[in-house]
């Protein structure tokens, strides 16, 4: 884009872009220095540096339990939703059946329905089933929210896959099961892994449904944060927020690595 007739606008556009990046990235990043503050209250810039809030976080069972609970819920959600989502994507991309668009719609609905409605709906029923405040209840709820992301990612992998590859495998002597295991699955794997990682993040960040389904007995990290943010705000929350962001960033880096591994056809 070096055309001269575009130039006058480009400087303005670049400036707007830089401002937008600032708006998107910087506010959230400010919690990171806050967590290392030596001050007893959240002030900026921090008057000095200290690890006291991390120490407090690591010794407070509320935070450590929340962290472990969240990790468990997110991991199980990633596993369950990637299995269900991968199967569903295979069915939707390869399958032929009446009511396919209805199934498609059902699978995408969790993205559309306001999360507060999902939260109270699940709360209402899970109370009756006595699975609130339990690992299984949270995994069930988060899996419903995460399935669409797996289906979208795996569907893209399957749609961009060359159908000739599977025909070639059959031609070379591989039956349906071996074709699936040796060709289809490896080629869809980057999409499945990306879907699983996004499912992990969906659960890891999820707070509204978790607020309703958690109990004092079993809380995820975001729920602990929510309780804290609404009451006393001390820099421990900033430290916890930094940890949450660090996990998110790590998982996104993994997604990037997985996508890089995708064999180009």
């Amino acid at each position, binding site marked *: 884009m070096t055309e001269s007739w575009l130039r006058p606008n480009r400087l303005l556009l670049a400036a707007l872009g830089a401002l937008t990046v600032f708006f998107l990235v910087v506010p959230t990043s400010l919690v990171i220095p806050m967590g290392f503050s030596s001050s007893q209250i959240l002030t*900026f810039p921090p008057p000095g540096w200290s690890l006291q809030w991390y120490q407090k976080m690591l010794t407070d069972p509320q935070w450590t339990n929340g962290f472990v609970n969240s990790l468990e819920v997110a991991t199980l959600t990633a596993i369950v939703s990637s299995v269900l989502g991968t199967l569903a994507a295979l069915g939707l991309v390869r399958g032929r059946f009446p009511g396919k668009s209805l199934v498609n719609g059902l699978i*995408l609905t969790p993205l559309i329905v306001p999360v507060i409605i999902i939260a109270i709906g699940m709360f209402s029923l899970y109370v009756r089933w006595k699975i609130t405040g339990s690992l299984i209840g949270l995994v069930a709820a988060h899996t419903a929210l995460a399935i669409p992301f797996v289906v979208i990612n795996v569907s893209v992998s399957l749609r961009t896959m060359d159908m000739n590859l599977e025909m070639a495998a059959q031609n070379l002597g591989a039956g349906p099961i071996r074709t699936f295991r040796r060709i289809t699955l490896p080629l869809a794997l980057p999409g499945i892994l990306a879907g699983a990682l996004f499912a992990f993040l969906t659960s890891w960040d999820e707070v509204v449904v978790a607020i309703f389904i958690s109990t004092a007995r079993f809380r995820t990290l975001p729920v602990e944060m929510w309780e804290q943010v609404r009451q006393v705000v001390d820099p421990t929350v900033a430290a916890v927020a930094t940890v949450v962001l660090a996990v998110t960033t790590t998982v996104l880096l993994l997604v990037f690595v997985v996508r890089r591994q995708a064999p180009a056809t």
Partner: protein
Amino acid sequence: MALPGLPAGRSGRRPRGGPTVNRWAWLTLPAVVFLVVLFLVPLVLMSLRSFTEPPNAGLANYGEFFASEADIRVLGNTFYIATISTIVCLVIGYPYAYLMSVAPPRVAGLLLIAVLVPFWSSLLVRTFAWEVILRDTGVINSLLMGWGIISQPLSLIRNTLGVILGMSQILLPFMVLPLYAVMRRIDPEYSRAAANLGAPPFAAFRRIFLPLSLPGVVAGSLLVFVLALGFYITPTILGSPRETMISRFIADQIQQRLNWGLGSAMAVILMILTFIVLALASRAVRIRDVFGALGDES
């Protein structure tokens, strides 16, 4: 190496005539059962509670809602804040997506990362960050007061300004991604052709690029608006009771007043509003594409 013939009937891929259901179809079953039992049934039962609590309520909960001026104001508030947030997102997001679509690939990649990382970052953390920045002893006020520009803290939080700021920033990726998905498919040759035919840059933009990017505008605005309608965390932390949006209202009915009837009725109303917006928008774009844009590049 010659293989024995197989018994007839073991056909290759699909039997003759093409049945209406093939084997792959069954693979959707586990997910469908899961979602029906753990997602759809809860929604339906919750909706029913709006008619049955208190017993034989019928439409009483809905009557109560629409009769209450305060409740209607919450609904109005919700629409107001969602609309403003959508406009802010569009104003910021359109030039950004345009920049992404014309920038060299490496720059475009970085700009995309700047959208995707926030997109996947915890909404609660991002809201908390805004609180840290905007409150009276927050980053902005302490910096401005430290520099002697102001002597009294500006009120940036517990008001509409704070809510709009936070929501716009959090929702911006939902505007940029569909816009970018549409814009990067617009062939730059069109704009060059327009220039060649005598159109000055702005005219070329207005007559060629803008109309071609409209599906992205509709998709992004729709997505942001629908999501904004259901926002709970951000307005609750950054707003005051005056900025109460319908989600907070629903949560309060359920959690604090244990008023399942009214809470469910409002949830049904919010759900219906959401589907009306989506139905209107589906005349302009395929809903699937809107959400597909999120999975596509993310």
